[in-house]
Protein backbone atom coordinates (compact mmCIF):
# COMPACT_ATOMS: atom_id res chain seq x y z
CA UNK A 1 0.00 0.00 0.00
CA UNK A 2 1.32 3.46 -0.86
CA UNK A 3 1.88 6.18 1.71
CA UNK A 4 -0.90 8.33 0.26
CA UNK A 5 -3.40 5.46 0.47
CA UNK A 6 -2.52 4.84 4.11
CA UNK A 7 -2.90 8.54 4.88
CA UNK A 8 -6.30 8.63 3.18
CA UNK A 9 -7.45 5.51 5.04
CA UNK A 10 -6.17 6.79 8.37
CA UNK A 11 -8.54 9.75 8.01
CA UNK A 12 -11.41 7.38 8.71
CA UNK A 13 -10.33 7.09 12.34
CA UNK A 14 -12.77 8.98 14.52
CA UNK A 15 -12.50 10.25 18.07
CA UNK A 16 -14.03 7.90 20.67
CA UNK A 17 -17.46 8.56 22.06
CA UNK A 18 -18.07 9.61 25.61
CA UNK A 19 -19.24 7.08 28.13
CA UNK A 20 -22.98 7.23 28.33
CA UNK A 21 -23.64 7.44 32.03
CA UNK A 22 -26.60 9.73 31.93
CA UNK A 23 -29.14 11.10 29.51
CA UNK A 24 -27.18 14.31 29.07
CA UNK A 25 -25.64 15.30 25.78
CA UNK A 26 -22.11 13.80 25.52
CA UNK A 27 -20.46 17.23 25.28
CA UNK A 28 -22.44 18.55 28.21
CA UNK A 29 -21.21 15.55 30.14
CA UNK A 30 -17.64 16.34 29.18
CA UNK A 31 -17.84 20.02 30.12
CA UNK A 32 -19.49 19.06 33.41
CA UNK A 33 -16.60 16.74 34.20
CA UNK A 34 -14.01 19.29 33.18
CA UNK A 35 -15.69 21.91 35.38
CA UNK A 36 -15.74 19.44 38.24
CA UNK A 37 -12.06 18.63 37.90
CA UNK A 38 -11.29 22.39 37.68
CA UNK A 39 -13.38 23.00 40.78
CA UNK A 40 -11.67 20.18 42.70
CA UNK A 41 -8.21 21.49 41.88
CA UNK A 42 -9.25 24.96 43.03
CA UNK A 43 -10.84 23.57 46.21
CA UNK A 44 -7.75 21.58 47.12
CA UNK A 45 -5.52 24.59 46.60
CA UNK A 46 -7.81 26.89 48.60
CA UNK A 47 -8.09 24.39 51.48
CA UNK A 48 -4.32 24.31 51.82
CA UNK A 49 -4.15 28.09 51.71
CA UNK A 50 -6.85 28.46 54.38
CA UNK A 51 -4.94 26.04 56.61
CA UNK A 52 -1.75 28.07 56.29
CA UNK A 53 -3.57 31.39 56.75
CA UNK A 54 -4.91 30.02 60.05
CA UNK A 55 -1.35 29.02 60.95
CA UNK A 56 -0.05 32.50 60.05
CA UNK A 57 -2.72 34.07 62.29
CA UNK A 58 -1.72 31.73 65.10
CA UNK A 59 1.99 32.57 64.69
CA UNK A 60 1.19 36.30 64.67
CA UNK A 61 -0.85 35.87 67.84
CA UNK A 62 2.15 34.10 69.42
CA UNK A 63 4.51 36.88 68.27
CA UNK A 64 2.32 39.40 70.09
CA UNK A 65 1.94 37.34 73.24
CA UNK A 66 5.49 35.94 73.48
CA UNK A 67 7.48 37.36 76.34
CA UNK A 68 10.99 37.04 74.94
CA UNK A 69 12.76 38.01 71.75
CA UNK A 70 13.94 34.51 70.84
CA UNK A 71 10.31 33.31 70.72
CA UNK A 72 9.25 36.37 68.74
CA UNK A 73 12.01 35.71 66.19
CA UNK A 74 11.04 32.02 66.05
CA UNK A 75 7.36 32.74 65.42
CA UNK A 76 8.36 35.45 62.95
CA UNK A 77 10.34 32.90 60.93
CA UNK A 78 7.43 30.43 61.09
CA UNK A 79 5.13 33.19 59.80
CA UNK A 80 7.47 33.85 56.85
CA UNK A 81 7.67 30.10 56.12
CA UNK A 82 3.86 29.77 56.17
CA UNK A 83 3.53 32.80 53.87
CA UNK A 84 5.97 31.15 51.51
CA UNK A 85 3.84 27.99 51.44
CA UNK A 86 0.78 30.11 50.57
CA UNK A 87 2.73 31.99 47.89
CA UNK A 88 4.23 28.82 46.41
CA UNK A 89 0.85 27.11 46.42
CA UNK A 90 -0.70 30.09 44.61
CA UNK A 91 2.12 30.08 42.04
CA UNK A 92 1.70 26.35 41.55
CA UNK A 93 -2.06 26.70 41.13
CA UNK A 94 -1.72 29.53 38.63
CA UNK A 95 0.98 27.70 36.73
CA UNK A 96 -1.25 24.65 36.40
CA UNK A 97 -4.15 26.76 35.22
CA UNK A 98 -2.22 29.11 32.99
CA UNK A 99 -2.57 27.94 29.45
CA UNK A 100 1.10 27.76 28.64
CA UNK A 101 0.15 24.98 26.26
CA UNK A 102 -1.05 27.61 23.79
CA UNK A 103 2.44 28.95 23.06
CA UNK A 104 4.42 27.87 20.00
CA UNK A 105 6.06 24.44 20.17
CA UNK A 106 9.56 25.94 20.30
CA UNK A 107 8.64 28.25 23.20
CA UNK A 108 6.95 25.29 24.87
CA UNK A 109 10.15 23.25 24.63
CA UNK A 110 12.12 26.15 26.16
CA UNK A 111 9.59 26.43 28.99
CA UNK A 112 9.61 22.65 29.53
CA UNK A 113 13.41 22.69 29.71
CA UNK A 114 13.22 25.24 32.54
CA UNK A 115 10.61 23.18 34.40
CA UNK A 116 12.60 19.97 34.08
CA UNK A 117 15.68 21.38 35.82
CA UNK A 118 16.73 19.43 38.90
CA UNK A 119 16.39 22.27 41.37
CA UNK A 120 13.29 23.86 39.76
CA UNK A 121 10.87 22.95 42.60
CA UNK A 122 13.30 21.50 45.13
CA UNK A 123 14.88 24.85 45.92
CA UNK A 124 11.50 26.03 47.23
CA UNK A 125 10.88 22.91 49.29
CA UNK A 126 14.34 22.99 50.87
CA UNK A 127 14.12 26.69 51.66
CA UNK A 128 10.66 26.38 53.26
CA UNK A 129 11.73 23.26 55.16
CA UNK A 130 14.84 25.05 56.48
CA UNK A 131 12.77 28.06 57.57
CA UNK A 132 10.29 25.90 59.52
CA UNK A 133 13.19 24.09 61.12
CA UNK A 134 14.97 27.32 62.07
CA UNK A 135 11.76 28.86 63.46
CA UNK A 136 11.05 25.78 65.59
CA UNK A 137 14.64 25.76 66.91
CA UNK A 138 14.26 29.36 68.05
CA UNK A 139 10.91 28.63 69.73
CA UNK A 140 12.24 25.52 71.54
CA UNK A 141 15.43 27.24 72.65
CA UNK A 142 13.41 30.21 73.93
CA UNK A 143 11.10 27.93 75.92
CA UNK A 144 14.07 26.20 77.55
CA UNK A 145 16.23 29.28 77.91
CA UNK A 146 16.99 28.48 81.52
CA UNK A 147 18.01 24.84 80.74
CA UNK A 148 19.90 24.91 77.42
CA UNK A 149 21.80 21.75 78.18
CA UNK A 150 18.61 19.65 78.12
CA UNK A 151 17.48 20.67 74.63
CA UNK A 152 20.71 21.35 72.82
CA UNK A 153 21.45 17.63 72.35
CA UNK A 154 18.03 16.65 70.90
CA UNK A 155 18.06 19.76 68.67
CA UNK A 156 21.44 18.87 67.22
CA UNK A 157 20.36 15.25 66.67
CA UNK A 158 17.20 16.53 64.95
CA UNK A 159 19.31 18.74 62.68
CA UNK A 160 21.49 15.79 61.81
CA UNK A 161 18.45 13.67 60.97
CA UNK A 162 17.01 16.47 58.83
CA UNK A 163 20.34 16.99 57.05
CA UNK A 164 20.56 13.25 56.34
CA UNK A 165 16.93 13.18 55.10
CA UNK A 166 17.55 16.13 52.75
CA UNK A 167 20.80 14.60 51.50
CA UNK A 168 19.15 11.23 50.86
CA UNK A 169 16.25 12.91 49.03
CA UNK A 170 18.68 14.96 46.95
CA UNK A 171 20.85 11.95 46.17
CA UNK A 172 18.02 9.65 45.06
CA UNK A 173 16.16 12.54 43.46
CA UNK A 174 19.23 13.40 41.42
CA UNK A 175 19.74 9.78 40.39
CA UNK A 176 16.13 9.54 39.24
CA UNK A 177 16.31 12.92 37.53
CA UNK A 178 19.51 11.93 35.73
CA UNK A 179 17.84 8.80 34.43
CA UNK A 180 14.43 10.22 33.46
CA UNK A 181 14.64 14.00 33.05
CA UNK A 182 18.20 14.75 31.97
CA UNK A 183 17.94 12.85 28.65
CA UNK A 184 14.85 14.94 27.86
CA UNK A 185 16.70 18.17 28.61
CA UNK A 186 19.56 16.99 26.40
CA UNK A 187 17.10 16.16 23.62
CA UNK A 188 15.38 19.54 23.94
CA UNK A 189 18.76 21.30 23.91
CA UNK A 190 19.71 19.34 20.82
CA UNK A 191 16.48 20.34 19.05
CA UNK A 192 16.87 24.00 20.01
CA UNK A 193 20.48 23.97 18.83
CA UNK A 194 19.43 22.38 15.56
CA UNK A 195 16.81 25.09 15.03
CA UNK A 196 19.30 27.81 15.87
CA UNK A 197 21.70 26.49 13.25
CA UNK A 198 19.03 26.05 10.55
Amino acid at each position, binding site marked *: *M*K*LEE*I*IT*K*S*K*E*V*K*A*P*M*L*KKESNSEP*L*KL*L*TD*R*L*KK*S*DRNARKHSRRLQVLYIVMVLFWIFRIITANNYLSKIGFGILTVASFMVIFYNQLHYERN*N*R*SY*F*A*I*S*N*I*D*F*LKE*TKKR*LKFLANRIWYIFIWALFDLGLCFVIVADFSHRYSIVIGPILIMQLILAIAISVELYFGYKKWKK*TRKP*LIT*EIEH*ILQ*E*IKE*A
Partner: protein
Amino acid sequence: MRNKLDLKNIETRFANIVEENKDKIYRICCYYVSDDDEVKDLYQEVLMNIWKGLDKFRGDSSITTWIFRITVNSALAFLARQKKSKKVALFEDIINSEQKSRKDRHKEINQLQKAVSQLPLLDMIIISLVLEEVRTKEITNITGLTGGNVRVRIHRAKEVLRKIIEGEKS
Protein backbone atom coordinates in the same frame (compact mmCIF):
# COMPACT_ATOMS: atom_id res chain seq x y z
CA MET B 1 -12.57 33.93 37.78
CA ARG B 2 -15.28 32.74 35.41
CA ASN B 3 -18.73 34.18 35.99
CA LYS B 4 -21.91 32.38 34.93
CA LEU B 5 -22.35 34.23 31.62
CA ASP B 6 -18.70 33.73 30.68
CA LEU B 7 -18.95 30.09 31.60
CA LYS B 8 -21.98 29.63 29.37
CA ASN B 9 -20.14 31.29 26.44
CA ILE B 10 -17.04 29.23 27.07
CA GLU B 11 -19.08 26.04 27.21
CA THR B 12 -20.71 26.85 23.87
CA ARG B 13 -17.37 27.73 22.28
CA PHE B 14 -15.79 24.62 23.72
CA ALA B 15 -18.60 22.44 22.42
CA ASN B 16 -18.21 23.93 18.93
CA ILE B 17 -14.45 23.52 18.95
CA VAL B 18 -14.63 19.90 20.07
CA GLU B 19 -17.36 19.08 17.60
CA GLU B 20 -15.44 20.56 14.67
CA ASN B 21 -11.95 19.32 15.54
CA LYS B 22 -12.26 16.20 17.68
CA ASP B 23 -11.31 13.71 14.98
CA LYS B 24 -8.25 15.69 13.91
CA ILE B 25 -7.15 16.13 17.52
CA TYR B 26 -7.64 12.43 18.18
CA ARG B 27 -5.68 11.38 15.10
CA ILE B 28 -2.80 13.73 16.02
CA CYS B 29 -2.76 12.08 19.46
CA CYS B 30 -2.54 8.71 17.70
CA TYR B 31 0.74 9.72 16.01
CA TYR B 32 2.47 10.32 19.36
CA VAL B 33 1.53 7.24 21.37
CA SER B 34 0.81 3.71 20.26
CA ASP B 35 -1.17 2.30 23.17
CA ASP B 36 -4.92 2.77 22.79
CA ASP B 37 -5.47 3.72 26.45
CA GLU B 38 -2.62 6.21 26.31
CA VAL B 39 -4.12 7.79 23.20
CA LYS B 40 -7.38 8.26 25.11
CA ASP B 41 -5.53 9.74 28.11
CA LEU B 42 -3.68 12.13 25.85
CA TYR B 43 -6.88 13.07 24.00
CA GLN B 44 -8.52 13.77 27.35
CA GLU B 45 -5.57 15.93 28.40
CA VAL B 46 -5.77 17.94 25.18
CA LEU B 47 -9.45 18.64 25.80
CA MET B 48 -8.65 19.63 29.40
CA ASN B 49 -5.98 22.05 28.22
CA ILE B 50 -8.28 23.53 25.59
CA TRP B 51 -10.92 24.01 28.29
CA LYS B 52 -8.45 25.59 30.71
CA GLY B 53 -7.10 28.02 28.13
CA LEU B 54 -10.27 28.94 26.29
CA ASP B 55 -11.15 32.05 28.31
CA LYS B 56 -7.63 33.40 27.70
CA PHE B 57 -7.81 32.94 23.95
CA ARG B 58 -7.91 36.45 22.51
CA GLY B 59 -7.78 35.61 18.83
CA ASP B 60 -4.13 36.58 18.27
CA SER B 61 -3.89 33.53 16.04
CA SER B 62 -6.56 31.50 14.26
CA ILE B 63 -8.52 29.09 16.45
CA THR B 64 -7.13 26.06 14.59
CA THR B 65 -3.53 27.26 15.10
CA TRP B 66 -4.33 27.65 18.80
CA ILE B 67 -5.90 24.18 19.03
CA PHE B 68 -3.05 22.46 17.22
CA ARG B 69 -0.51 24.23 19.40
CA ILE B 70 -2.25 22.90 22.47
CA THR B 71 -2.58 19.42 20.94
CA VAL B 72 1.10 19.14 20.00
CA ASN B 73 2.34 20.72 23.25
CA SER B 74 0.13 18.41 25.31
CA ALA B 75 1.54 15.46 23.36
CA LEU B 76 5.10 16.66 24.03
CA ALA B 77 4.35 17.01 27.74
CA PHE B 78 2.75 13.55 27.71
CA LEU B 79 5.82 12.04 26.04
CA ALA B 80 8.04 13.80 28.57
CA ARG B 81 6.17 12.24 31.48
CA GLN B 82 6.10 8.76 29.97
CA LYS B 83 3.87 7.36 32.65
CA LYS B 84 0.33 6.24 32.77
CA SER B 85 -1.87 8.48 34.83
CA LYS B 86 -4.71 6.89 36.72
CA LYS B 87 -7.52 9.05 35.48
CA VAL B 88 -11.19 8.33 35.21
CA ALA B 89 -11.69 7.23 31.64
CA LEU B 90 -14.02 9.59 29.87
CA PHE B 91 -14.11 7.66 26.68
CA GLU B 92 -15.02 4.23 25.54
CA ASP B 93 -14.68 2.41 22.30
CA ILE B 94 -17.40 2.84 19.79
CA ILE B 95 -20.07 0.20 20.32
CA ASN B 96 -19.38 -3.46 19.52
CA SER B 97 -20.95 -3.60 16.08
CA GLU B 98 -18.44 -1.03 14.90
CA GLN B 99 -15.55 -2.52 16.81
CA LYS B 100 -14.17 -4.72 14.08
CA SER B 101 -14.18 -2.09 11.37
CA ARG B 102 -12.66 0.39 13.79
CA LYS B 103 -9.82 -2.02 14.49
CA ASP B 104 -9.25 -2.44 10.77
CA ARG B 105 -9.10 1.31 10.30
CA HIS B 106 -6.64 1.48 13.16
CA LYS B 107 -4.22 -0.66 11.19
CA GLU B 108 -3.40 2.27 8.96
CA ILE B 109 -3.02 4.78 11.74
CA ASN B 110 -0.91 2.30 13.74
CA GLN B 111 1.28 1.80 10.73
CA LEU B 112 1.65 5.56 10.36
CA GLN B 113 2.34 5.97 14.08
CA LYS B 114 5.05 3.33 13.94
CA ALA B 115 6.71 5.12 11.05
CA VAL B 116 6.23 8.63 12.48
CA SER B 117 7.75 7.57 15.82
CA GLN B 118 11.00 6.78 14.03
CA LEU B 119 11.41 10.40 12.96
CA PRO B 120 13.33 13.02 14.98
CA LEU B 121 10.97 14.80 17.41
CA LEU B 122 10.77 18.04 15.44
CA ASP B 123 10.01 16.22 12.18
CA MET B 124 7.47 14.14 14.09
CA ILE B 125 5.66 17.30 15.21
CA ILE B 126 5.63 18.70 11.69
CA ILE B 127 4.55 15.51 9.96
CA SER B 128 1.73 14.93 12.48
CA LEU B 129 0.32 18.28 11.35
CA VAL B 130 0.99 17.65 7.65
CA LEU B 131 -0.92 14.38 7.87
CA GLU B 132 -3.92 16.37 9.12
CA GLU B 133 -3.59 18.72 6.12
CA VAL B 134 -2.46 21.74 8.12
CA ARG B 135 -0.99 24.33 5.74
CA THR B 136 2.73 25.18 5.85
CA LYS B 137 2.05 28.76 6.95
CA GLU B 138 -0.05 27.52 9.84
CA ILE B 139 2.63 24.98 10.78
CA THR B 140 5.15 27.83 11.04
CA ASN B 141 2.77 29.60 13.44
CA ILE B 142 2.19 26.46 15.48
CA THR B 143 5.80 25.38 15.76
CA GLY B 144 7.59 28.74 15.75
CA LEU B 145 9.90 27.56 12.95
CA THR B 146 10.60 29.50 9.75
CA GLY B 147 8.73 28.66 6.54
CA GLY B 148 11.89 27.46 4.80
CA ASN B 149 12.81 25.21 7.66
CA VAL B 150 9.30 23.71 7.75
CA ARG B 151 9.28 23.03 3.99
CA VAL B 152 12.67 21.31 4.10
CA ARG B 153 11.61 19.17 7.04
CA ILE B 154 8.28 18.22 5.43
CA HIS B 155 10.05 17.08 2.29
CA ARG B 156 12.67 15.13 4.24
CA ALA B 157 10.21 13.55 6.66
CA LYS B 158 7.84 12.47 3.87
CA GLU B 159 10.68 10.75 2.07
CA VAL B 160 11.64 8.90 5.26
CA LEU B 161 8.01 7.91 5.88
CA ARG B 162 7.65 6.66 2.31
CA LYS B 163 10.80 4.59 2.66
CA ILE B 164 9.66 3.08 5.96
CA ILE B 165 6.09 2.30 4.88
CA GLU B 166 6.62 1.28 1.28
CA GLY B 167 9.85 -0.50 2.18
CA GLU B 168 7.99 -2.48 4.83
CA LYS B 169 5.37 -3.54 2.27
CA SER B 170 7.90 -4.67 -0.30
